[in-house]
């Protein structure tokens, strides 16, 4: 689908939502947003995916007029895991994993998009409260360690995830098409985990949070890939036996071909 068609579709959707009168508390802005796809399917040719988010800032007559323009921050979080970060050290001439830190509940995917630098949008305390921005994420180890160590391992975690493409921060990732209508693109690399993804939208103006909204989307393996993966997890014995059967069959066919030649 072309970008233009997508836009038309979403603009129509948003217009419909606005004109039908989405319930909103008086005197405040509301956020309305829609996503191009509700589910991302991982198939055999999966090389990452890109979702488009369109939305609009809803106002009614009672909304207080405030100076300045809107700022929008979009935070996408993937399913959580408890990752172990290891650090290699030289042991007898070779580099081996030595120290390790396990962190609690870290999102497997974390992307922050905004229309300008986060530091210009809000003060650090409010960014920290909502976990907006990689520097404002809290990484808690599951055991007591020195703060310097925690910081070193947490920094490494972020650095590695940034290079994997699983963490990202785009200070100009959100476009305001008009004063009220915005769009952003969510890029998912091919190494993403399956599960539920949550998109949080935060509308700021002059450093104050005016409204928030959240959306969900899922990442699923489908077809053959899903079948293989599920079989390996749920039926490992059967999966292993089937792998052997395939190997025996291929080897046997090769044997027949050998004898003929």
């Amino acid at each position, binding site marked *: 689908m072309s970008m233009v068609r997508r836009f038309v579709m979403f603009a129509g959707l948003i217009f419909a939502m606005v004109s039908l009168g989405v319930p909103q508390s008086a005197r405040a802005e509301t956020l309305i947003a829609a996503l191009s796809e509700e589910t991302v399917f991982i198939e055999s*040719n*999966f090389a990452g995916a890109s979702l488009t988010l369109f939305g609009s800032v809803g106002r009614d007559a009672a909304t207080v007029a405030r100076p300045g323009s809107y700022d929008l921050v979009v935070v996408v979080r993937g399913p959580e895991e408890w*990752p*172990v970060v290891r650090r290699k050290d030289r042991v007898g001439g070779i580099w081996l994993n030595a120290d390790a830190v396990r962190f609690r509940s870290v999102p497997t995917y974390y992307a922050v998009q905004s229309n300008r630098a986060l530091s210009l949008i809000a003060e650090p305390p409010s960014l920290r409260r909502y976990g907006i921005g990689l520097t404002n994420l809290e990484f808690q180890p599951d055991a007591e360690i020195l703060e310097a160590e925690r910081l070193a391992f947490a920094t490494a975690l972020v650095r590695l995830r940034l290079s994997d493409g699983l963490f990202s921060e785009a200070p100009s990732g959100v476009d305001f098409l008009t004063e009220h209508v915005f769009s952003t693109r969510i890029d998912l690399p091919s*190494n993403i985990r399956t599960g539920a993804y949550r998109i949080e939208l935060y509308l700021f103006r002059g450093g104050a949070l005016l409204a928030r909204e959240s959306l969900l989307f899922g990442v699923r393996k489908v077809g053959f890939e899903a079948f293989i993966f599920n079989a390996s997890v749920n039926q490992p014995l059967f999966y*292993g036996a089937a792998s052997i059967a395939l*190997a025996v069959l*291929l080897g046997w066919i090769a044997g027949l071909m050998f004898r003929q030649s």
Partner: protein
Amino acid sequence: MDIYLPIAEITVNALTIFGMGAAVGVLAGMFGIGGGFLITPLLIFNGITPAVAVATGANQVVAASVSGMIAHWRRDAVDRQLGGMLLAGGMAGALVGVFIFRLLREAGYLDAVIELFYVVFLSIIGSLMLIESIKTILKRRRGRAPSTRRPGQHSWADRLPGRVRFKRSKLYISVIPVLALGFAVGFLAAIMGVGGGFIMVPAMIYLLRVPTNVVIGTSLFQIVFVAAFTTVMHAIANGTVDVVLAALLMVASVLGAQVGVQAAQRLKADELRALLALLVLAVSVRLVIRLVSVPEEAFSITALAGGLVA
């Protein structure tokens, strides 16, 4: 042509993997080897995690060895009694190997241990093959027929208790070295994803003094079943067998093997063996460099679930 591997959970170029499998298959066909000890390190160099590379390698070994085993079985060149006893030892070894594999993985030492095992074994095999082939080349240049060594009449294995008569091999030997050899090969199969023919065949000839006409068949018999058992155990204990990756490698390597067999008939074996030895040593050196050079990134992330070792 990119393909998503459901267990390794990464997208790879199918042609690269296929080409690699085919190249190893050609070598395997030329030299009558399984090729597991080349496939696993090549997968690691291509970004597949060692845990998935090893378990998938074990699966590939089944395909590479099964047709040979069937051929030897038909010719009655398999000592089933000896093979069965080697297999019993092999399954025990594989069981212990898979268990240790899991412990090492949880402790974060698995990658380094797998690479170390490869360095040790590839250096030894590569050096022995290189020396052997250079000797043969030199002898041929001097115009002498290469002599084949004959196994000695007695070995230390004879003095061990628990002797059993193996009818097909016409042997009366202790079961201890047989079980120990099976165990060692099974252990390596689980840790390295190899068949272990490179240890099994010389050990059967020189240690157990099995007649040469049943050595290859019996060794293949043990390898097929131990590799199959290892694959299932890895699938259950570690969830690291990627059947899509394995299928690509298996098709490529069995096709490559045919080319290899044809090519071997037209080429000089000694010089080829010297080249293979150099290749094996090169892979070993590459692994040593990986292990000893200062890593670009000292940190790594592990999330223990299925094949998700990043």
